[in-house]
């Protein structure tokens, strides 16, 4: 990866905390010394606007997407540096929870993988209050955050199995004892799908009961669904499009369909931390990732962009797309999950 050449090593930290941290680290200097000995980068570069700070970004977006985005932004804004913390949603949320209870959120920008997480943070006044000017469609943003990438939940089917045309096909005899679904208690995207089905009167939570009655099985993550179907363990399953196309492009024997009434769109929103309201760099980064230029980088890195007109990974021409009602889902999610676990639990 091209970033490997950048000489950014420990200790790099925001100025406000560097002394406290350094003092605490002193007894462990042995270790710190081995991590590198370079000085923190000088801040305050040239340029009219003040886009030259070091900001911290927390995200659950995969490295393959986030690294090119950071690289492009730093190239455009000499002096600006982005310290990245990337982790799966559960770890990311735990880190935020830990931060908030021990001195405050360390991130200046959070790029989450689902709107539910964002809604919670906005409700706690940790994030929001500002969004960049953007062309991103209204259903993918609020006044506190803006969608910058989208996950689509699609169906995959194994070699030799007729691909399903609609989500409801999965409850039919053709897929008896052969459907696999991701666990909404484990993966936020699966929770989004659960939310959509439960809200659509044509499905409801009964859809999951019908799947279960048809012999469906749950696994942890969407990737496990893709793997299981590719291996022929299951006939068909619900997974995210990125995982499915990545496997198919590598040669896995699977078919990918965007079933009726539509692939379920789960957008990844980004927002400004309340404590970073004055940071021009953080605002510039958000503006960049929601702009056509930033969206193009995101799309080229393999994620689905949020901005219409930017060409990204495969979307079939006739594909329809549906959106869960996220605001409603916020209040329903605990009960929904408990209902789901009644069905798919032991």
């Amino acid at each position, binding site marked *: 990866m091209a*970033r490997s050449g950048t000489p950014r*090593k*420990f*200790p*790099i930290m925001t100025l406000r*905390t560097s002394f406290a*941290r350094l*003092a*605490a*680290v002193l007894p*462990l200097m*042995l*270790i*710190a010394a*081995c*991590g*590198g000995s370079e000085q923190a980068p000088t801040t305050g570069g040239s340029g009219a606007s003040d886009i030259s700070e070091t900001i911290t970004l927390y995200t659950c977006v*995969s490295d393959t997407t986030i690294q090119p985005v950071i690289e492009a932004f730093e190239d455009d804004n000499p002096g600006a540096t982005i*310290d990245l913390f*990337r982790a*799966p*949603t*559960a*770890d990311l*949320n*735990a*880190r935020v*929870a*830990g*931060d908030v*209870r*021990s*001195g405050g959120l360390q991130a200046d920008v959070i790029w989450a993988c689902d709107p*539910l997480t964002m809604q*919670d943070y906005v409700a706690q006044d940790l994030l929001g209050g500002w969004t960049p000017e953007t062309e991103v469609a209204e259903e993918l943003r609020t006044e506190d955050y803006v969608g910058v990438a989208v996950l689509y939940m699609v169906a995959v089917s194994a*070699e030799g199995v007729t691909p399903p045309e609609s989500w409801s096909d999965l409850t039919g005899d053709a897929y008896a004892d052969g459907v696999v679904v991701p666990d909404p*208690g*484990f993966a*936020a995207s699966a929770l989004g799908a659960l939310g959509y089905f439960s809200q659509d009167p044509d499905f409801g939570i009964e859809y999951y009961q019908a799947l279960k009655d048809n012999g469906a099985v749950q*696994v*942890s*993550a969407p*990737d496990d669904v893709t*793997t299981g*179907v*590719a*291996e022929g*363990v299951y006939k068909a399953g619900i997974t995210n499009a990125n*995982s499915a196309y990545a*496997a198919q492009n*590598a*040669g*896995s*024997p699977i078919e990918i369909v965007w079933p009726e009434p539509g692939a379920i769109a789960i957008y990844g929103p980004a927002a400004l931390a309340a404590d970073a309201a004055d940071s021009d760099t953080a605002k510039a980064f958000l503006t960049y990732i929601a702009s056509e230029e930033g969206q193009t980088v995101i799309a080229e890195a393999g994620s689905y962009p949020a901005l219409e007109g930017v060409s990204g990974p495969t979307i079939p021409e006739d594909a329809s797309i549906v959106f869960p009602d996220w605001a409603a889902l916020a209040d329903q*999610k605990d009960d929904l*999950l408990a209902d789901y*676990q*009644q069905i798919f*639990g*032991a």
Partner: protein
Amino acid sequence: MAGARYLRGATLGVVTVAAVSVVLTPLLVMARTVWIEGGADVADILTARGLSSAVKNTFLLAVAVTVLAVPLGTALALALRRPNLPGRAFWRVVILLPVLVPDFVLGYSWLRAYGRAGFTDDLLGVHWPGVQTPVGVTVVVVVNAVPLVYLITAVGLAARSEPAMERAARVSGGTALSVLRTITLPLLGPATATAAVLVFVLTLGTFAIPQVMGSPAGFSTITTRIYSNLARSSDPLAFTEAVTLALLLVVIAVLVVAPADALLGPRLRVTRVATTDSTSVAGSRAGGRWAATGIACYSVLAMGLPLLALVATAITRAVGLAPTPENWTLDNFLAVLNARNGEALGRSVMLAAVAASVLVVLGGLVAALERSRSGRGLATLVSLTLVLPGSTLALGLLLAYGRWLGGTLAIILLAYIAKLWAFAHRPISGALDRLPPDELHAARISGAAPLTAMRTVVLRPLAPALLAAWLVCFLTALHEVTMSSLLYGPGSETLAVVVLNSAELGQVGVTSALSVVITLVLLIPALGFWIAIRGLNRGKASLSPVPPVPEPAHVG
């Protein structure tokens, strides 16, 4: 003797400070968080739908794994003690292989080996439907725990066995079984007890295997519920629930471990003269062959096929393709072995080495202190952080120290120490009571300086235990990912974090390649250590005052 008192005081001081810092403070901070934020909700959390079955599953899993893994690991250690066992050196290394593989990878490898469309299914048309049920989870957690039991028991044998007495019994006409029952096993008591406690606690807190393998059967444990809550912990209620459930695990651990430590520990200890010769009575050749066959079968089924399946996954271009040459690729390995990861690997090795070294010292100190009244309870205390799933322990440390150490290697080091203290302490504890205090006194009276006395009298017989403890901590820390991936910051990414950041946990190809690379990277130092341990044992055997007795001609 004032010096001894100072030494003891200083030791107690160091251990207390460490235990308060890495164990008590995180736990108390977590309890305080629940108290402040959740007060009224705790009753609701503890009566939530499905929790009782998760608690039951967790407890039964821990009991089942302990009951199965302890005899199995002990049997392996006893079998591998026979000097006439064919291929003994080889099997000793093979038994430890699961320590080299992160537990979620072990889970995957079993699914790939025995599941539907897995290795045996492709090859022979048979698969094990039970692999994705609670039974499968139990079996794989057992396989994961056996090396620990083996290690503790082997070290216990090295330090505590009485080969002279065993030989005398055999020569006097005792059967192999009665020697085992009346001499060998009773002497192993402390090691067995310590292994059982460790396995129990470890299983209470195990997360990845139940999550990976138990999901299709809807098998939930306290740890899988904790993870599910952490996934939604942007909601303060879910966060409180995660922390409350983690503390529930700690309470369960206290309820079981504290009585076990208090009752078993002192009772199983015996004061004995020190002789060090770990080889047993040889036994018959046929017996050796049977034992070797048994070990070979276990190794092939529990590790050989799953690891082969893992390698096949790592070199295959895409999941679902046959692992045949036209589908082979090195891409997964290249993803692991790029320059950025090299830096992270160096950092991981260094961090694991520092953690293991600190842990051996701390583990040894606790083992020494718990022998006196004032030190009792310490053993239980330092086991409490082992029961916390990695993500929760990391969270506790972040709550306690995040404002000062957030994102540094220091906080990751603290996490490793907190998580693995019991790993270091228990093997040493199982071996320590062979040290007769008289010898230390004798050395001092004869004019040895304190350090010399320590080195020659205390450390030498303990060397196998110390090395084993170091090794298991080092290896476990090296592929640790749960805590590091929550705690890292710029410049403190470990290898597992970097690799798994570029490929989500579900991408089995890259994850398998990571395990294969770590296994290969480790086999070399592991072999070095094994040779060192063997050398130490040899050295002691040659010093042994008891000459080896020829095999008895008749064998019962």
